[in-house]
């Protein structure tokens, strides 16, 4: 997918000034965010689960080549095909070529963030193949020709009225005024597609190395449809989704599902190991697993960023983030928004182009608190800020303005000693003279004017604390 990360400010501004988006984002705090808190509070030993999950992820990624080779052996042994794609383009080529070779005209898709990285739907359409998103939220987003707004609930930015109008416009159906009717319409529209599609494409929440099994967590039933109806099933996923043993699934399913929606379990958990058995009544005859790198190896190689690959894609950090809850998913400009997106999107596209993402955070730590595997996102944001400013590991992405460097040098001088602090105080008091009224400054000059648009600014004290200390003395 084309990256618009450098348009973050515009995107954020647009979201902030759109009352409909603001109203729809409101629901996140009491919705998914609170649901996760309730679910984790009600799970005995939640923190022990988190620690174990994190330890397993760390071990698996530290030995990723070993486990991916295990996946490979087992997928092949179960009668499936496996393709290791170095980047999004290679992955798309594989899928498109497969579809062409098999004469596929219609593809049904379950939710796959990696397929968004690949802009797979575009590629299929270019070849005259029709891709149809079957997850309700993705279906809506596809009709609207937009990108997903949230990892778990892609169309959460749209009100029912907007969805109704969208259906009228794109599907030529009456204007529905309730959500049950809209859902039924989507179900009816997609029913025949499920029957007619020659290929089902899904993502994968987990890949079990031990057995070569792909695991799908869904609620709607479209994941089951995509893996039961068409003759060919293709699962596409990032290489970091591996877990070692099938006995690890219980733990990870608890961590993922309770953190994503607060449910104890989703309506469906589906495991796929190769194509259907010879004597089975139904199911695909062919199974393909596409495992994608697309820049993940860069994060793997950087000890400061490797833990970003522990991500289960639950969306908890998005729901917890006070910035995401104001600007929503589109502002981040690429596939992954929110706190984890602020690391992954720059690293998988272009760090310096995406430099707003690591900086557009107050480092409040709500994301770290929410993460089921305790990923320390603020630490990585600080690391990326350091990289963008000082360019040590990624010198080609060093991207810092002269103005800011100069200001920091000035700051550094002013804090270099007590004397310099006193001098700066004096300087500050002189500079502020034209602006101070009643101990407050109503309007700061640019570039600080952003402050006073919304807040008063305090005047610098004429007697700073260090000066007063000698009078405070000892009692």
């Amino acid at each position: 997918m084309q990256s618009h990360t450098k348009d973050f400010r515009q995107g954020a501004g647009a979201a902030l000034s759109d009352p409909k988006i603001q109203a729809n984002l409101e629901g996140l705090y009491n919705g998914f965010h609170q649901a996760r808190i309730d679910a984790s509070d009600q799970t005995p030993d939640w923190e022990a689960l988190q620690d174990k999950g994190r330890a397993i992820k760390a071990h698996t990624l530290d030995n990723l080549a070993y486990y991916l080779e295990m996946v490979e052996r087992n997928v092949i042994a179960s009668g499936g095909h496996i393709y290791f794609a170095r980047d999004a383009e290679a992955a798309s080529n594989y899928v498109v070529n497969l579809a062409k070779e098999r004469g596929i005209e219609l593809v049904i898709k379950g939710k796959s963030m990696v397929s968004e990285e690949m802009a797979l739907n575009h590629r299929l359409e270019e070849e005259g193949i029709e891709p149809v998103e079957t997850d309700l939220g993705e279906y809506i987003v596809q009709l609207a020709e937009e990108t997903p707004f949230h990892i778990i609930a892609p169309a959460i930015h749209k009100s029912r009225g907007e969805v109704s109008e969208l259906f009228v416009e794109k599907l030529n159906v009456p204007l529905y005024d309730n959500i049950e009717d809209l859902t039924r319409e989507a179900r009816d529209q997609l029913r025949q597609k499920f029957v007619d599609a020659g290929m089902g494409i899904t993502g994968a929440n987990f890949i079990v190395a031990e057995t070569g099994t792909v695991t799908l967590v869904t609620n709607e039933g479209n994941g089951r449809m995509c893996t039961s109806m068409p003759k060919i099933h293709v699962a596409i996923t990032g290489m970091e989704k591996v877990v070692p043993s099938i006995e690890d699934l219980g733990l990870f399913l608890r961590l993922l599902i309770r953190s994503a929606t607060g449910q104890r379990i989703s309506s469906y958990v589906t495991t796929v190991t190769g194509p259907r058995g010879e004597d089975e009544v139904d199911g695909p005859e062919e199974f393909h697993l596409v495992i994608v790198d697309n820049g993940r190896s860069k994060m793997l190689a950087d000890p400061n960023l490797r833990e970003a690959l522990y991500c289960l894609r639950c969306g908890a950090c998005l729901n917890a983030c006070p910035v995401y809850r104001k600007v929503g998913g589109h502002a981040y400009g690429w596939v992954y928004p929110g706190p984890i997106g602020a690391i992954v999107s720059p690293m998988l596209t272009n760090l310096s182009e995406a430099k707003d993402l690591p900086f557009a955070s107050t480092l409040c730590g709500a994301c770290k608190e929410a993460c089921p595997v305790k990923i320390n996102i603020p630490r990585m944001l600080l690391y990326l800020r350091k990289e963008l400013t000082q360019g040590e590991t990624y010198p080609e992405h060093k991207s810092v303005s002269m103005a800011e460097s100069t200001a920091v040098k000035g700051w550094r001088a002013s804090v270099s000693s007590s004397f310099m602090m006193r001098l700066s105080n004096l300087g500050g008091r002189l500079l502020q003279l034209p602006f101070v009224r009643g101990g407050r400054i109503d309007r700061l000059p640019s570039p600080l004017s952003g402050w006073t648009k919304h807040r008063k600014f305090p005047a610098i004290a004429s007697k700073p604390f260090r000066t007063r200390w000698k009078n405070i003395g000892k009692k």
Partner: protein
Amino acid sequence: MTERNEFFNTIRQALGPQTEAPNLTGTGSSALGDNSDAVSARSQAIQAYIDEQSGPLMDSLSESATGAGWKVARFDDLDKAGDHIVGIVRDVEANLVVRSRQDVLESGIVEAWLASLGVDVVPMALGEHSEHTVDELRSLAERADIGITGVDYAIAETGSCVLIPSAQVSRLVSLLPPIHIAIVQRGQVLPTLDELFTIRRRDFLDGNLGSYMNLISGPSRSADIEYTLVTGVHGPGEVHMILVG
């Protein structure tokens, strides 16, 4: 270098020098460090436990399944369960019912229960068990009003049914019809997800994992529009769990 080898080369370079085989009994290596005997031992212990605790597990399942959105009903024996199922079929005025071919249903009890209602019952079967093709079976499942199955396991922690497709069990019988009725018998209930996956691991080591498995925990649902919960999106909107024993 082939594409595949290049892919792995990139990863190996990213990881730096390491021994080929990781320490499987260290922290974070999960259960892979266990050998087959250990898995068997665990699996046998589970079997003993679920037999001994079958009553309380059914109680616990009844509660969790209700919480998960199943309509739960419990009966001492299959006959009484049959009366209840007849009631459901009658209430929805069903014309066509599809069923799986698990042992509990193979004796033809569904046909017997529904005989007087004039409802067509089609076992989802291929080969010598039926004259239908795969496509015809799929059509029938799509037209059916109700799908009836047994289960391979149920899980008390999450209120789930576990269905493992095979020659006896179709993937679609519990997916396409708008109503799914699942019959759970005493002794089939596992306490948590962990026991299920230990048993499946034992199956895998025995060469018996199969190609597919579904954990079903309530009706098909979505909250994608305005966080509002709706059921019956693509899968069944009404699901009944009949506990027998």
